[in-house]
């Protein structure tokens, strides 16, 4: 017999289709006397089956091996191998253990016993003289049985093939679901997970065997982005479909935003049975979009700043010159001269602000060697009066040769900004510490200079700390444009350096420390960007 899951059947009998329900079966008649065979042939001819004659057991066996025999009709007393021996030989063959055998015998007690001995398979006997109707009846019963069995086998095989094909289809579909990078999940209406593809394993970090059977809302802690829990669920139940962004949590507790599509599956009765959920991780996309928007805003601001700077500077210079001329004009009395001088002072302030906030004024496009301690001392000189007014003591420690390649005017601007902030943070006095030493950045392995600017002023509030380097963010109430630190960070980034700060605000001590690292040499890309005069770059715009 062919094994069940085989797609190609092997024996010839499978050429029969279910439609040939009336295909003839083979009936083998075995008797050493040809006359008897002939008489059986006449009796059984009406049955309409195939009648095969054999005059010996050997011949009979040959037929059996070649054809599918439904019934073997055999004389018991034959020379050489008798009917019973033949039957035994037939029964030994695994293929013929169910073949119907009808013995034709005289009524011998010993024969009857032996017939009863053949319990396996379909066995019957008929006594001599043979009654034609009886013979016909017995043969046709077995013949019909065989036919039915054959049909059943064919149908079974076809069914098995269809199941195999269908299983293969389902497996292919399951494989496709596994190929999908989206998380595909099925849950029942109460939230119990029934299906969890490898995309879901990937996205959430939970393996299939860990979540199937659990409640999906416990596992993922899903929230809608609108913040209201539950409305999307009722929307889903109401219209059978729902699409939108959801906030979920992966195994590590990390928050992810997904674009979710959900559909209600009906069961066999048409009632809502299960929910199919397909989610795509859009956290990175949203972050990138947000970053791009920020970068575009900053770049736009940089461009606008450059334009405004230029438009303001022209008339500003004219006014500054006018006040310069007024300064010592003989027609002015003392009072007028004071007014002129005050006006000139404020004009210089405007000029300074424009320079600080709307662009950088560079002396050169190539980076030059900058001795950091010199720049710091320069700034300390500029701030001398403020330091004195706020009674701030200064401690400096400059180690090593501390020289880097950079743009001195811009670095001066950074130090001016930071030292100025430090002094302003100590209106009632304090200590300003400046430290410079050579070191290697652990992350990049670049050699460079570390600069520390520390004060023991009031410190930075934690809620401000996050936003400190943002443009237009200021902790000083009225003064300050809020652009100083943003610009400073931009300049440091242009030098391929880093800037960080630490602030303490406890009852025992408070203060802030800014730490800047500047690599020794600036890479070629920075030099090229510098010489292109790209405003957005110099404002730290796109790279903030």
């Amino acid at each position, binding site marked *: 017999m062919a094994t069940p899951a085989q797609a190609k059947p092997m024996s010839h009998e499978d050429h029969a289709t279910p439609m040939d329900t009336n295909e003839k079966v083979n009936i083998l008649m075995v008797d050493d006397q040809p006359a008897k065979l002939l008489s059986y042939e006449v009796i059984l001819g009406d049955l309409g089956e195939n009648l095969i004659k054999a005059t010996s057991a050997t011949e009979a066996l040959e037929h059996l091996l070649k054809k599918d025999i439904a019934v073997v009709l055999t004389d018991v007393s034959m020379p050489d191998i008798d009917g019973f021996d033949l039957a035994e030989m037939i029964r030994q063959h695994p293929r013929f253990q169910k073949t119907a055998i009808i013995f034709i015998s005289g009524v011998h007690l010993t024969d009857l016993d032996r017939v009863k001995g053949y319990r396996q398979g379909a066995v019957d006997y008929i006594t001599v003289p043979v009654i034609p109707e009886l013979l016909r009846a017995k043969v046709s019963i077995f013949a019909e049985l065989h036919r039915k069995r054959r049909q059943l086998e064919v149908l079974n095989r076809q069914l098995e093939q269809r199941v195999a094909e269908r299983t293969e289809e389902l497996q292919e579909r399951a494989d496709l679901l596994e190929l999908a990078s989206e998380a595909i999940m099925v849950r029942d209406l109460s939230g119990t997970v029934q299906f969890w593809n490898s995309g879901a394993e990937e996205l959430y970090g939970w393996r299939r065997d860990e979540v199937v059977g659990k409640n999906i809302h416990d596992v993922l802690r899903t929230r809608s982005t609108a913040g209201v829990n539950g409305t999307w669920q009722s929307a889903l139940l109401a219209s059978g479909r729902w699409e939108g962004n959801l906030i979920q949590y992966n195994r590590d507790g990390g928050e992810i935003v997904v674009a979710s599509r959900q559909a209600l599956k009906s069961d066999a009765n048409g009632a809502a049975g299960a929910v199919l959920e397909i989610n795509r991780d859009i956290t990175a996309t949203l972050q990138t979009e947000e970053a791009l928007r920020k970068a575009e805003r900053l770049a736009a601001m940089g461009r606008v700043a*450059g334009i405004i*700077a*230029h*438009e*303001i*500077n*022209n*008339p*500003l*210079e*004219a006014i*500054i*010159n*006018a006040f*310069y*001329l007024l300064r010592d004009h003989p027609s002015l009395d003392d009072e007028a001269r004071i007014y002129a001088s005050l006006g000139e002072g404020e004009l*210089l302030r405007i*000029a300074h602000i*424009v*320079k600080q906030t*709307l*662009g*950088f*004024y*560079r*002396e*050169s*496009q190539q980076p030059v060697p900058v001795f950091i301690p010199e720049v710091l001392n320069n700034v300390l000189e500029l701030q001398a009066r403020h330091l004195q007014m706020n009674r701030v003591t200064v401690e400096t420690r400059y180690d090593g040769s501390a020289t880097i390649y950079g743009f001195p005017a811009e670095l001066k601007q950074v130090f001016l900004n930071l030292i100025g902030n430090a002094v302003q943070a100590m209106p009632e006095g304090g200590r300003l510490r400046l430290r410079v030493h050579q070191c290697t950045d652990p992350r990049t392995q670049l050699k460079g200079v570390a600069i520390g600017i520390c004060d023991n002023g009031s410190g930075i509030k934690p809620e401000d700390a996050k936003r400190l380097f943002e443009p237009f963010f200021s902790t000083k109430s009225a003064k300050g444009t809020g652009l100083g630190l943003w610009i400073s960070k931009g300049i440091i980034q242009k030098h391929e350096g880093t800037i960080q700060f630490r602030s303490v605000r406890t009852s025992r001590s408070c203060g802030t420390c800014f730490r800047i690292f500047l690599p020794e040499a600036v890479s070629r890309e920075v030099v090229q960007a510098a*010489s*292109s*005069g790209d*405003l957005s770059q*110099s404002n730290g715009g796109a790279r903030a």
Partner: protein
Amino acid sequence: MEAPVPESRSVILCVDDETVPLTLRRLVLEKSGFAVVPASSATEALDILKAQAVDLVLTDLLMPGLSGLDLARKIKERSPALPIILLSGVNEVPEDADCADLFLSKVEGPVAMLEKISEMLKKSRGTTV
């Protein structure tokens, strides 16, 4: 701080397309003792240079027609030793500003401008033919 007074009257060619700023700049320069020849465009400046010699050129960067840079380039072709200062309202140094001898921002103020001019004149006096 008082601006330095030049030893002999140096002649400065001052170029700017805007009248009021040009006038005020000229007055500042004259107050410090310089002789000033004004021009409202690069073309006018080049014509003036054909007719007379000057000791220094102080020019605006962005002007309609030829820019201050174009002017500087043209002048250098004929008189490479003539000092040229680019004065500008932009805060960025343009790419090829190195054909001029110095780039100065307008908002540095008149004192810085006068200092730089004196410096340049001193340097060039040492090397003039």
